[in-house]
């Protein structure tokens, strides 16, 4: 069985800098949720950017539905059905909520379909429906977060890549955010989640991938990852030798 997305031996880095991701491989099946965890600087975000086309991989290839998408422009990749939610809130702060959602449906050629998707998003996030005319940047953090995830439902991608959704959020919001992610996963969209908050992240996912220094450290079903002693060592160092 061919997987939906397969990342084969990808190496990537920024500018003239060193390789951040080394020879990394990963595959994702339809409706599967995988969580990538690992300490700072492990190359998790870089990997997602390489998949989304923001960063061109230095070597290796990325195959999506049997098509090689390595090196395509970000907007082309997105139109194929891979949606990327970057770390910083990817909303347009000076557009209204309605405009933000229309932008999300930008790539949908069938306007009726777009309308119905937007309608559906409002049903899922009623708060947004009440605030159509509000400038997105002036909403509360939680509402902005809803907008981010409403986008996923509008676009209805096949895969959604989420980069550190809980970063810089208040605890209550973290909870809300992970609920959104669960909603997305339950609607049949495959998810790759990169998360610092390993516990939350793994709870949401079926499978855990642990990265360290740009390489795959180990991967196993999510509930087993936390029990692995290697994880603890990665984060807090080995016991002092002396």
């Amino acid at each position, binding site marked *: 069985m061919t997987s939906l997305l397969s990342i084969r031996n990808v190496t990537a880095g920024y500018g003239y800098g060193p390789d951040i991701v080394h020879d990394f491989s990963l595959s994702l099946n339809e409706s599967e949720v995988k969580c990538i965890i690992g300490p700072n600087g492990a190359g998790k975000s870089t990997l997602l950017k390489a998949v989304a086309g923001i960063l061109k991989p230095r070597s290796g290839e990325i195959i999506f539905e049997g098509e090689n998408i390595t090196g395509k422009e970000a*907007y082309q990749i*997105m139109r194929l059905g891979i*949606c990327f939610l970057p770390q910083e809130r990817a909303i347009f702060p*000076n*557009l209204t909520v309605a405009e933000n959602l229309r*932008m999300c449906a930008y790539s949908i050629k069938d306007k009726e379909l777009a309308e119905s998707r937007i309608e559906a998003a409002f049903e899922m996030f009623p708060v947004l429906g009440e605030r159509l005319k509000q400038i997105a940047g002036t909403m509360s953090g939680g509402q902005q977060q809803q907008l981010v995830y409403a986008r996923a439902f509008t*676009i209805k991608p096949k895969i959604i890549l989420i980069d550190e959704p809980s970063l810089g959020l208040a605890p209550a919001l973290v909870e809300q955010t992970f609920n959104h992610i669960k909603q997305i996963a339950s609607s049949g969209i495959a998810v790759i989640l990169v998360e610092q908050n390993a516990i939350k992240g793994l709870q949401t996912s079926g499978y855990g991938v642990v990265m360290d220094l740009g390489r795959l450290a180990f991967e196993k079903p999510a509930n087993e990852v936390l029990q692995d002693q290697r994880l603890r060592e990665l984060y807090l160092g080995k016991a002092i030798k002396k």
Partner: protein
Amino acid sequence: MEFLQVIILGLCLGFVYALMVSGLTLIFGVMRIVNLAHPILIISGAFVSYWLFIKLGLDPILSVPAAALAVALLGVLLYKLIFEKNAAQQTYSEMTVLLTFGTAMVIDGLLAFLFHNTQRTTSPGYATDAIFIGDIFIPLAQLYSGIISLVIIIVLAVFLKYSEFGIAIRATSQNRTSAELVGVNVKFVCLISFAIGCALAGSAGALVSFVFSFFPSRHWEWIAILMSLVVLGGMGSLTGAVVGALVLSVISSLVGAFYSPAWSTMVFFLALFLILIIRPMGLFGVRTD
């Protein structure tokens, strides 16, 4: 009474200035290019109108679309030849400013060589007419160009506000990466925005052709004036630019009428200098750091 009169004159001019500056601010907003070549593009537009007027007797107001189209094509050409290389950069660099400066010199030199640096104006019948309301008069040339400018600005605003592509332009100017992530072809948006900006310059040129006299090297002076308007309004903000244009041209008219016309342009230069120093973001701009 006189005060009111001066303000009316200032406002009429203000709308023309607003149109002159709207393209500049759009290009800056989307591409972060401080386009010093904008004023010379306006003059190019004025030349198109001028020739249509001289050769075919076409009213400059009717030649607005032609001027807009011609300058837009010129803009696309410039963009492809010169700016595309740098357009991908999110941060605007000094080199781009110098590039536009060089472009301005090239067009200036070429126009001056082909058509000479003589002052020109188109003179349709209404250029020397005015309507009188009591003692107050409104010169028709200024009135017409002001109204048409206003219409064009409104059309632009509506386009940016409601059309799919307009929203994409605004989205791109706010967050390039995000725009790309929702499927916007950013390069294409940049090209089109540049063309629209140039079209605005062209249409402004057609309207300016019967309000001001123009000659190719006039644009050096306009550079500072237009910059003062965008900077006051906050770089990249259309509303800001319109407000900036109205405010400054009214002040400048007041200075001209009650102090001395010799000093009226000083208003723009001083405003530009002071705003850049005190509030580099402009009065209406949002701090982005």
